């Protein structure tokens, strides 16, 4: 899916939200994390849409969605906009699949709107306070500094991508074009940095207790080659969430959708079918 594009939009809370929808069946919502946007799911959409009604979204400030700077891009805020989004699309129940901070948004969504979720799948997700994000001193945090540099220098950005992918050969020009596209405009760069600065692990700490008793089945997928997020995150999530399943993929980097898309699809399918 080299020419992947979000081809539809809705207006949620006054902002344009871009998305793509394909397939039929139970609804799956694919939510990306930071540094990426809907393109990260492009290698999963076709296989998933054979069995499901797949919706992939560009979070506010990302991809083709609006990039206002006068609202917070906190995980809480993203969850609210997502709720509005599925309401507008009249989606009653769905499977939430989140990657990176998308997984964090999934946790908040699952706690706040449990009645909407059939299941929650988290791929290399942030959680608790393991993700070293502190407000105010944001820029002193190495990962955020790296992200800042990356907005100005494609070389620095490629380093981030390269370190996030296990099969280095898959870091192609085409993949870099997807990653770099938002950095080509001042607006895209500003929104990206705004997103980075709005990340606050307080949002996730506040719901840590509520996670334990989530009513829906939860799948945690960990790429063991992810050097950005500690494996303690998935371990703690698995320990604490009662109805959770943990799957580890040794050949998965942080951007494991690039490394093992088929494997991820297989695991999701198996998981969702077993909880039907």
């Amino acid at each position, binding site marked *: 899916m080299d020419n992947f594009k979000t081809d539809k939009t809705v207006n949620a809370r006054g902002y344009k939200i871009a998305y793509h929808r394909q397939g039929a069946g139970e609804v799956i919502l694919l939510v990306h994390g930071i540094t990426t946007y809907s393109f990260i799911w492009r290698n999963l959409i076709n296989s998933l849409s054979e069995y499901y009604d797949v919706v992939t979204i560009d979070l506010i400030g990302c991809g083709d969605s609006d*990039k*206002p*700077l*006068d609202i917070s891009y906190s995980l809480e805020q993203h969850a609210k906009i997502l709720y509005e989004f599925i309401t507008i699309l009249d989606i009653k129940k769905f499977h939430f699949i989140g990657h990176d901070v998308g997984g964090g948004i999934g946790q908040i969504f699952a706690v706040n709107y449990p009645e909407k979720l059939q299941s929650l799948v988290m791929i290399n997700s942030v959680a608790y306070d393991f993700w070293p994000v502190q407000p*105010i001193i*944001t*820029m002193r945090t*190495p990962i955020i*500094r790296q992200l*800042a*540099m990356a*907005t*100005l*220098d494609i070389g*620095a950005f490629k380093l981030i991508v390269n370190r996030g992918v296990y099969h280095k050969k898959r870091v192609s020009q085409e993949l870099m074009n997807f990653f770099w596209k938002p950095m080509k405009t*001042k*607006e895209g*760069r*500003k929104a990206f*940095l*705004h997103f980075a600065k709005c990340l606050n692990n307080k949002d996730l700490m506040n719901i840590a207790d509520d996670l334990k008793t989530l009513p829906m089945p939860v799948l945690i997928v960990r790429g063991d080659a992810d050097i950005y997020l500690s494996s303690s995150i998935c371990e703690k999530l698995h320990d604490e969430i009662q109805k959770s399943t943990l799957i580890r993929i040794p050949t998965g980097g942080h951007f494991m959708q690039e490394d093992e898309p088929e494997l991820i699809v297989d695991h999701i399918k198996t998981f969702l079918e077993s909880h039907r």
Partner: protein
Amino acid sequence: MSNDLEKRCQGLEKTISVLENENDLLYERAEETLLISLIADIIRSIDDRDLLCSSILERISILKDIQYCACCEFKNNKIIQNQVYAAFSDINFSDSEIKLSSQVIEELDEGLVFITNGLCSQKGINIDFKNSDFDPFSIYISPFTTKSIPNGFFIFADDEPDETKLRIISMLLQNIIGMAVEKLDKITLLEELKQLNADLDRKIKNRTKSLIQTNKQLTQEISDRKKAENETIEAQRIANEHEKLSLVGQVAGKMAHDFNNVLGIIMGNAELSLLDCNEPQTKKTLELIYKQTIRGKNLTKNLVAFAKDQEPKQEFFKINEKINLVIDLLKKDLEGIELIREDKPDVPEVLADPGMIEHALVNLIQNAIHAISMTVNPKIIIKTYCFKDNICFVIADNGCGIPEKHLQHIYEPSFTLKGNKDVTGSYETTIKGTGYGMANVKKYIDRHKGSISIKTEFGSGTVFIVSLPIIKKELSKIEKEELHKSELHSGYHILLVEDEADISDIQYRILTQDPCNHKVDLANNGLIAMDLFNRNNYDFVSLDYILPKGFNGMDVYNHIRKTNKTIPILFISGNIEFLESIRELKHKDMYVDHLSKPCKNIDYLNSINKLLEI
């Protein structure tokens, strides 16, 4: 033991903290290096002031995490934000206001301004952040001067409650500002250079253009001057010739008059003596005297005709009818000669002096008759036809012809090949020439602006071709169309002074008819002309020079100029004396021009138009 462990732990923690600090410092340095290199990249690649500033500000903001960075200038007692980068907003800040207290401005004159601890507005710095909740904790202002921005400053504001944040990076910021200022000046210089180059290019182009123009003018002037010189030389030559001929003419005329008296007496007495004489030998002698006096009379007649330099009359007549008349006159001489006439039917009437043309025809036909005096089957062919805008007549004979070496002299007065000059025995011995026949013919044709050419072969015959310009009674269709195309003056009130009815008739017609449509008053002598001029308000005067009844064209001109210095006057004349005086007149009076008779209708109208345009 546990104490030891604790101590070691503390030591290790200390080491870790030192290493962390070092790590931070290294990070800072790496970042600064990256920032400087990114800015160097921009400075290398961007030549647009605004883009350069905005790119630098963005990089500083992102890499040094400064929320608000701007490049401003003092202009007309106001602070203008040329470029702004605000990390917290996507609104355009360029029209938002910055106010600096006089104290801050004074400090800026000294150098950098630092304000921290959230005291910005108290210290007199107010920035409109456009409804954003951004509240600066520290502000750093650095003044700069470039060629295009004489009073500029960079301003950096941040809300992080850290007093040292901006101070720490001030050196780095100063470095970057230095690089930016240098580049901005370079851009200005480049622009100036570009402008200068463009100016130079334009100047060179203009100069080249004007040089080419001047060169052209010079070339034109040189050629004009050469032409004028040649004309002067030619005019001088003609004047000399005229003077000589005029002198010769005057002398010859006077002599001819006296000589005619002498001849008259001789002829009378010879005639009387013949009546009384019965002696055959004496009678024969007296008859010879009588014949020779008649010849002498013819000679003086031609001589007087040549000496007289009168303006040709202008009348319309048919050339072939005139030829018929002359043939009839020379009927006796043409006996025994085969005469062939070829008259083309469409030949229009010629506007010319009938006497002069008749005289020319007599001379030409008589020459032909003389030339065939020794020819076995003598033949003369006379043709009339039109060629281009000319009426042509041809007189050809199959006689003795003219040797080539004499051709250049045949129009000279007193030149003849007949009589005792006939060294080749081409003519019958009784034939004598006056030497003024062809000179007169040439003069007549010239006066009518016509031309004469000769084709001859010694011993085989001679062909004379005379052509006279056609003066039409009306404008042709093509001439009318051309006049319509040009900016034609029409509807003027014109005084037309012309005594010859045939000419005034034409001029009146073409002036009053379409496309000119002038109102024309006609005067056929000077007196009437002056009277009409006194009583009317004319726009233009068409003035013949030779006029009857005491007042000529010059008299009329002088009368007009007494009261009106600028009314255009077109002289029409063929008089040689006048041609000399008009040249001087034209220098003095720019509202005067001249056309020599006979003139073509279109030339007449064009001359009038030209004068009316002044």
